[in-house]
């Protein structure tokens, strides 16, 4: 068992490491790469250690008032998010080396990129609502320069949108937290939430504060109607879109929802309330909305962003079923979707990098030009559709079984939405595959004529992800069981 003091060290190591980059002012790419890899790998190793041998206690870093402090701890739910981040970050950093090669202002880029790692871990390991809120806000601020990195007009517009949505969301969430706190709710996360304590809150307060937090944190999880920042944010460099807008930022939103739902409110006070039904309705709507928008969109990265939007609501749907099976299924999809979607984005980035093309309609014949890249893309597409033998099938399976076990109108509606979305997923991804492999006769591929598979910094992560998707199909149950044992305490 590791000492709890390692938790802030794991969180602040990449933060400090990131801040140091512009101060050191690396001139040579090689030395910056070695330094960055060392920081990121050390953080991942440390995080893995924390997950394998979790500290028993929480640690308070800053005491704001007698009752409010910034504190961290490692528990089952945080571990799920932590393991995802710790696995993906080193690979995404490797990918970013090649993607960003030749770009300007790399020191600034990698500084923010690495700081984000620490902040995401801070969210995963936060021990109370204030810490969670604080780190979500910091994440917004630090990722903003990453979106505007290219300094184009579109990037600034996206940046402003990003800021407006998240500040509005933060305000709502903050009001929700205050409302919850002043009426007697505890700030510390306790498995089971209110049910574990003695405080009695009126249903109106519970409903109002829950919905405020849901849509507040839900802005990060891109729940309709606070979803529009996500497709716009695709103007950022691909490593940002792939890691932050498919995994770290958006899943922080999902994670926050799971966290306050199960560890602040608890299932009993929410079960069957109008608040649960409203939240579920919005999640179900977002599932279908995202899938249909992805189908209509022809910009490669924006299409994937809409697909993310849809999939995030799969997770929220699972979580809001308020059953053990639903929570496990939602979290399982959070893990699996993280891997699938980062893969898809990496392919989109590799294609843009090699060919200069950004629209799916231009990719005719690219299956021949970039055979390995598109082989991985095909696998990831099938996985996201939910076809066996890839991991996407298993998380969808768990979600469906959770919905059926729950029963009732909303569960069936959600299941129907997921199946409809699966069909749209097939359409919006497989058309790309078909176009890439079967361009039609007498058709010269667009883009740079020398476009081929990317270098090994991009290929290695893609290969590992493809392998992971198959392995996680076979070993989905141990993963699900691990999640289940981690969150077992939340059902009282």
């Amino acid at each position: 068992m590791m000492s709890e003091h390692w938790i802030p060290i794991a969180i602040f190591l990449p933060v400090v490491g990131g801040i140091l980059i512009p101060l050191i002012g690396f001139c040579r790419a090689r030395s910056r790469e070695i330094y960055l890899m060392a920081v990121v790998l050390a953080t991942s190793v440390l995080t893995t250690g924390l997950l394998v041998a979790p500290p028993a206690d929480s640690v308070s870093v800053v005491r704001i008032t007698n009752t409010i402090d910034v504190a961290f701890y490692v528990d089952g739910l945080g571990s799920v998010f932590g393991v995802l981040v710790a696995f993906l970050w080193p690979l995404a950093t490797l990918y970013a080396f090649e993607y960003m090669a030749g770009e300007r202002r790399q020191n600034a880029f990698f500084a923010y990129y690495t700081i984000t790692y620490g902040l995401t871990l801070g969210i995963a390991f936060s021990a109370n609502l204030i810490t969670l809120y604080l780190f979500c806000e910091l994440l917004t601020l630090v990722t903003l320069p990453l979106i505007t990195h290219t300094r184009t007009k579109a990037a600034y517009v996206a940046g402003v949108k990003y800021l407006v949505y998240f500040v509005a969301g933060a305000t709502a969430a903050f009001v929700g937290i205050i409302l919850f706190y002043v009426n007697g709710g505890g700030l510390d996360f306790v498995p089971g939430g209110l049910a574990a304590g003695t405080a009695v809150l009126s249903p109106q307060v519970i409903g109002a504060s829950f919905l405020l937090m849901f849509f507040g944190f839900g802005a990060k999880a891109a729940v309709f109607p606070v979803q529009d920042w996500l497709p716009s944010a695709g103007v950022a460099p691909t490593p940002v879109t792939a890691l932050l807008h498919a995994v770290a930022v958006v899943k922080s939103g999902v994670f926050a929802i799971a966290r306050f739902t199960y560890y602040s409110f608890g299932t009993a006070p929410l079960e069957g309330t109008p608040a649960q039904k409203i939240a579920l309705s919005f999640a179900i709507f977002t599932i279908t909305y995202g899938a249909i928008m992805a189908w209509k969109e022809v910009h490669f990265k924006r299409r994937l962003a809409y697909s993310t939007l849809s999939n995030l609501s799969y997770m929220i749907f699972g979580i809001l079923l308020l059953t053990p099976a639903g929570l496990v299924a939602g979290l399982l999809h959070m893990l699996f979707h993280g891997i699938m979607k980062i893969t898809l984005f990496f392919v989109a980035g590799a294609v843009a990098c090699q060919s200069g093309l950004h629209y799916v309609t231009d990719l005719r014949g690219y299956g021949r030009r970039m055979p390995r890249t598109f082989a991985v893309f095909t696998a990831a597409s099938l996985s996201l559709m939910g076809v066996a033998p890839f991991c996407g099938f298993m998380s969808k399976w768990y979600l469906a079984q959770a919905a059926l076990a729950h029963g009732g109108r909303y569960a069936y509606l959600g299941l129907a939405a997921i199946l409809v979305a699966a069909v749209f997923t097939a359409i919006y991804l497989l058309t790309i595959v078909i176009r890439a492999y079967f361009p039609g006769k007498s058709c010269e591929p667009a883009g740079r004529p020398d476009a081929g598979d990317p270098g090994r910094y991009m290929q290695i992560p893609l290969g590992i992800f493809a392998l992971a998707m198959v392995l996680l199909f076979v070993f989905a149950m141990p993963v699900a069981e691990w999640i289940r044992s981690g969150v077992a305490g939340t059902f009282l």
Partner: protein
Amino acid sequence: MQETPFVLLSLTDTLTVAFRADAPGLAFLVLVAAMWTVAGIYALRYKDHLENNGRFFAFYLLTLVMLVGLSFAANYMTLYLFFEMMTLFSVPLVLHDGTAEAVSAAKKYLFYSIFGATLGLLGFFFIHAYGTTGDFMPGGVLDAGKISGNEEVVSVVAFLAVMGFGAKAGLFPLHAWLPAAHPVAPSPASAVLSGVITKAGVFCIVRVIYYQFGVGFLRGTWVQEAWISVALLTILMGSLMAFREKRLKTRLAYSTVSQLSYILLGFFFLNEIAFAGAMLHVLYHSVLKDGLFLSAGNILYRTRLEQVDDLKGLGRRMPWTLACFTVFSLGLTGIPPFAGFLSKWELAQGALHSGLLPYSWLAPAILLVSAVLTAGYLFPIVVHGFFPGRDACAERGDVGEAPAVMLGAVLLLAAAAVLLGLFGNSVLAYFFEIADTVF
């Protein structure tokens, strides 16, 4: 008598990828293997007409692998896995020519199939939640305790699941991909697509109805009546469309739509006679439709003629091919002693014995009407082929009979059509044995 399945993968406690050889699976496997071999040998010669041979044969064999897996599937999970994979691996066969028409047809095929498979997946979700076991059991696995109070939902899901797998078998309203996709594929691929892969949809429906939801749950419900109505509609519609179609391979594809619904109709009546008849028609239709598509392939190979009206006088140039075409046409119309008569006879008997008014008399009537239409869309080709009349235009001196290997494959199927017609009774007896296990 159930043997323990061979478990390849345990995904969860109840979710496994497992295989077992049972009678319907083996029967389907024999059919798959035979047809794949014949069409494969045919393709060895036909490939002169194809570019990218390697790719064609790679996907041809991969599709076979998936069909073998499908035959041996011991539970719904495995069935779904291989069904989806079969779709994905057979798409490149449709795409093979790479023309704009092929690409749009392949997309249609892919998306209809995936939509159908998604409905099948819905059925799987429910069966897993409401069944006693995930394995296929003759008579079904529904847990009476769990479904009580939820009968209506389960019925709707059963209906949708069968309609979903029906997409593969060209069942209305998910049939539109079939006349688009089958003709654009190279002829050997059209033959197995129409003759065998569509039957995979039928096979899945048999598994879903007889081994998962169970006859007892479905018999006499609105679900059964809805299925029968849809099948009857598809039979009539397919035949009419085939009758109106002028392009030979598309006409054959519409004919497949119609004939597959004969088979589904048999399985929807939920009695032994119709069941055995439908099983027999699976076999017969595979042989006949493979033969028809390969004959069309011979014609294309030699003449590059696609339109039915251009085939006048072809009998003088390609007598053997057209003779075989005649045998298949007679069989498909249902004229004894060729394969095709006995199965339709049993189907009609099964309908009449079902006592399900008004379908018990409506079905045989529609079968007869459709048989007339079948004769109407196949016989003129034969008649004009052999007796072009004085103003014949197909005087192409250089056109001869197809290469020996290709002709041999067609002749083999014609011989099979005759022999299976003559000895249909012993095959039928075997199918009655299978029927006994599920009722």
